[in-house]
């Protein structure tokens, strides 16, 4: 991309560079939830219309965006900016567990919904945070994984299918 811009579109390259610089200077992390924010306390954390007793823990800012677009959640968030990955040296500190503990000890949160990815590292992260929440005496839940709505079983991969069977529920 860089070569393309330099050869064909130097004006565009200039504008892109300026936009990136401005974004990097302006955007920081919310001091409460670690989401990307250009003000110290992001709009969701500051909102009085969101339920502070339910906290949804996600890996990345993009996950917050997805859940917000689904408009299915009225609580607040905590963004890990990553997930536990011991072989890459990413431990609890790197994903802000200390900050999360402070938040959980604050007294407002009653339930922690853990919405990390459905990967082995996402599951390990979910387990770890679940233990942290339980140690604080809070309810910890994990989002369900399974068959996409409108999906035919024959097109679902075998891992998802076996997970969906293991996590079946009564009708």
């Amino acid at each position, binding site marked *: 991309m860089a070569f393309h811009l330099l050869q064909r579109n130097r004006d565009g390259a200039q504008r892109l560079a300026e936009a990136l610089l401005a974004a990097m200077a302006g955007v920081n992390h919310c001091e409460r939830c670690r989401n990307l924010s250009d003000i110290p306390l992001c709009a969701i954390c500051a909102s009085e219309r969101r339920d502070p007793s339910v906290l949804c823990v996600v890996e990345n800012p993009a996950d917050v965006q997805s859940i917000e677009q689904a408009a299915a959640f009225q609580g607040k968030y905590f963004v890990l900016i990553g997930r536990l990955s011991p*072989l890459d040296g990413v431990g609890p500190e790197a994903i802000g567990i200390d900050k999360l503990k402070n938040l959980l000890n604050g007294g407002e949160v009653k339930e922690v919904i853990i919405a990390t990815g459905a990967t*082995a590292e996402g*599951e390990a992260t979910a387990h770890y945070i679940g233990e942290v929440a339980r140690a604080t005496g809070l309810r910890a839940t994990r989002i369900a994984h399974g068959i996409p709505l409108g999906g035919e079983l024959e097109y679902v991969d075998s891992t998802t299918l076996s997970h969906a069977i293991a996590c079946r529920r009564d009708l």
Partner: protein
Amino acid sequence: MRVDLHSAFVLHQRSYRETSLLLEIFSLRSGRVGLIAKGANRQRSAFRGALQFFRPLLLAWAGRGELATLVGAEIDGPFSALSGRALLSAFYLNELLTRVLHRDDPHPALFAAYRQALETLAQAGNEEPALRLFEKRLLEDIGYGLSLRFDVDTNAPIEPERDYYYQSDKGPWRNPPAHIDTVKVQGRTLIALAAALLHEPEVLSESKRLMRFILASHIGGRPLASRQLFN
């Protein structure tokens, strides 16, 4: 050079460039191998669903040098998904293997032990014995098997009720010389480890301390990151 489809596990993977993955695998025939899986991060990649941790796979690759290219990946039969402490334990096994094994050095017996350990971990509640027995097999396989039956000094059989002082890569002493570095361990823990019967809590916690002490000299200076996850 081409290596045909055969049993392997993914030890580690991370994104590489836009759409590829760098893999560290443990294979039955070649041991630890570094591979690049081109395009595996694409939504429609044939590799995408298969390349998962702790899942028995069949992998094939081609090329030479440090990094060969993955050319085939299939899921090899059913497996039980790991969760909770068992999952953290499995990451510990992977970290241990990547730190201790050299690349392209086959360890077929250890491969079988790894598969066995994952199966044991899938039955919740067996994490600690499974980890200790795997560590014991690992040390045997790299040529540093534990010495668990006789006092290294006097050659007297280990007695369950006595205390011993274990010296790394050597064995247990009743009366160690003052200048050597050892860890204290009861005779019955050594006997239980020799018999691979780790049930009693005290034996388990002593075995853990002993293994940590011995492994320290094989994993290099940095501590294992996955150990931090067990609180």
